[in-house]
């Protein structure tokens, strides 16, 4: 790609940035202007970049996106189909704009004990120090053009702070609703889990139509000693949309990060998950499922970095690829010289439903310590004929048998979501999608 074309597409993606109102938080204004400089100094990745070899994002440069001009006036009835019974606390964003009328406050006892669930722009002065030290602090995001773009537009976002020794039993639902075409939105989440705290966060991207738009998210999760965070990420954007996401997680001593990420939507999606096991005895699970069809492309890049000894990480990533869809998985496990007694497993399993479906998978291990237990692998296959015959021999039709087996393949990941109503909702989505007429 020539320099001229590149700078044009970058300008395109920065459209509307200069009209953003100044933030009351100095830190945010400073991060923003630094990020604009970063964007201008970086290039949009092309297929010549190793990290983007299989994912051609040039289609998104052909459309002119800009931040939403007029917010869609939505009522509860428009979006309540996405609400989750367990999640009494909810932040709703419409095309990237915080919607207080659809959001619900955290229950009073939690608020009194210092739990914060709010829009970043509404953060109170006592949380400034925490925001200052953690927002935009994860270094691997610095050289990432999409993360920089997100920061350029940093204004409203989800802020969650769980103080020391506090357990928030009910999951917190972050609901991002897309409604308008050719809109760019840059959702941001910052989660600070203080020592020995516990919380479940659902990051949920949904759409009300089938428009073309771009969602470009950054999530930063900071887990202090012995904190426990469940993170569920659901990407069910429009099948015409672009979805780019960066999630950075840092884990201190004995902390525990459990995540399940599901991708159904978007024409092209890319999820970068970066987990740093920075303290001894930290544990992480990063499971994923991509269920795609037609000409969708779903790309997951995960990097799990074992820095300290006695940490464990487990990753199961599955893809169900129908029609001429294309999935990409790149899973890197790094075990640093200090990280003795690391226990790490990674498995990528892919189900190709047609001869045109495609998967590019690359599990990578980079081990610099000698006393470690690491296992990784990838499988690619079709539905098993013996399994199909077994089901048919019990009277199930060929189609039902195939649907059931496809569904079961994905259900293994969905089963791991710790929120019953969401699990049920997703099971129905998968069921519908795997059911052919």
């Amino acid at each position: 790609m020539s320099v001229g074309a590149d700078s044009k597409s970058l300008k395109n993606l920065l459209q509307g940035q200069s009209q953003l109102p100044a933030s009351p938080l100095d830190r945010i204004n400073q991060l923003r202007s630094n990020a604009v400089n970063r964007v201008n100094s970086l290039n949009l990745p092309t297929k010549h970049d190793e990290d983007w070899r299989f994912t051609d994002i040039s289609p998104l440069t052909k459309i002119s996106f800009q931040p939403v001009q007029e917010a869609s006036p939505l009522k509860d009835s428009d979006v309540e189909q996405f609400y989750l019974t367990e999640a009494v606390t909810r932040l709703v964003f419409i095309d990237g704009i915080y919607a207080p009328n659809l959001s619900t406050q955290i229950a009073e006892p939690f608020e009194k004990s210092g739990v914060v669930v709010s829009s970043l722009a509404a953060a109170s002065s006592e949380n400034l120090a925490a925001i200052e030290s953690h927002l935009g602090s994860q270094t691997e995001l610095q050289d990432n053009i999409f993360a920089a773009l997100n920061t350029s537009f940093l204004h409203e976002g989800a802020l969650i702070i769980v103080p020391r020794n506090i357990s928030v039993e009910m999951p917190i639902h972050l609901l991002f609703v897309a409604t308008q075409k050719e809109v760019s939105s840059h959702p941001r989440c910052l989660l600070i889990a203080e020592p020995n705290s516990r919380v479940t966060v659902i990051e949920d991207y949904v759409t009300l139509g089938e428009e073309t738009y771009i969602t470009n998210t950054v999530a930063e999760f900071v887990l202090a000693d012995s904190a426990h965070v469940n993170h569920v990420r659901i990407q069910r954007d429009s099948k015409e949309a672009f979805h780019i996401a960066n999630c950075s997680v840092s884990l201190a001593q004995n902390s525990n990060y459990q995540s399940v990420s599901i991708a159904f939507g978007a024409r092209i999606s890319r999820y970068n998950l970066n987990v740093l096991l920075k303290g001894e005895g930290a544990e992480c699970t990063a499971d994923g499922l991509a269920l795609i069809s037609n000409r969708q492309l779903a790309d997951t890049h995960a990097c799990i970095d074992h820095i300290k000894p006695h940490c464990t990480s487990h990753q199961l990533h599955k893809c169900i690829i129908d029609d001429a869809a294309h999935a990409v998985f790149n899973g890197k496990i790094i075990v640093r010289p200090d990280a003795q007694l690391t226990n790490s497993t990674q498995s990528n399993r892919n189900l190709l439903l047609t001869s045109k479906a495609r998967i590019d998978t690359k599990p990578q291990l980079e081990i610099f310590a000698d006393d470690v237990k690491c296992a990784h692998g990838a499988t690619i296959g079709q539905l098993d004929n013996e399994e199909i015959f077994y089901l048919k021999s019990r009277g199930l039709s060929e189609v039902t048998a195939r649907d059931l087996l496809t569904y079961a393949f994905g259900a293994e990941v969905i089963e791991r979501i710790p929120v019953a109503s969401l699990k049920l909702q997703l099971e129905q989505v998968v069921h519908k999608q795997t059911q052919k007429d």
Partner: protein
Amino acid sequence: MIHQDSKTLLKIRGLCATVNNSEILKGIDLTIKSGEIHAIMGTNGSGKSTLAKVLAGHTSYEITGGTVDFEGKNLFDLAPEERARAGIFLGFQYPIEIPGVANNQFLRLAFNTAQVQKNKDELDPLEFDDLVREKMKLLEMNPDFLDRSVNENFSGGEKKRNEILQMSLLDPKIAILDETDSGLDIDALRIVSNGVNQLANKDNATILVTHYQRMLNYIVPDYVHVMESGRIVKTGGKQLALDLEKHGYDWVNIEKTAAAGA
């Protein structure tokens, strides 16, 4: 039990089948009537499991000759699922493990498919739960098996009990049990056999495909057929199985040779 007014369920004539161009069945003739229990015995490789799979419609086998008439219909006109719905049940020698498919979900799906076929009402999960738990008692199965994935990490005996559980739910006209006794200890053999006996009645028929006589101590066959090299070489009553157990399969050959020589 052999009845006077029994009707013919299955009529196999000159059945030949190949797998990967190698001929396994070389002209099988067999008639099964309602109320009857047939045992098909034979050495490994004699074709008895192939016969079971061909009747159920496994796609790896090619039918190269002969006819199979099932209640007046050409069996080969029916897809495997249509055969199952019409009342043919195959108990697998090696039941397939299906991770991610809950056993109760699978059982209910299969059961309701059969119900629709019989013009009966489908059962909702609660109604079905009551029914299946009742059936499980007969097989002394732990109800925990309902929540587990189909056959996944089941022991050999548990898998076979799960097969008979499916049979009891589907209530087939012809049950073909392929080496159901293999991998069973004495207790499991008794329980499974007891289940099969309870399901046998004057309107259905059972075909036991087995290498050993021991299951026939529990399920008493009306006919015993000995297969060898893709053919039925000898047919007799239950005594034949005992003779085989005593003398070995070679004895059939010696008898045949003697008969040919005489």
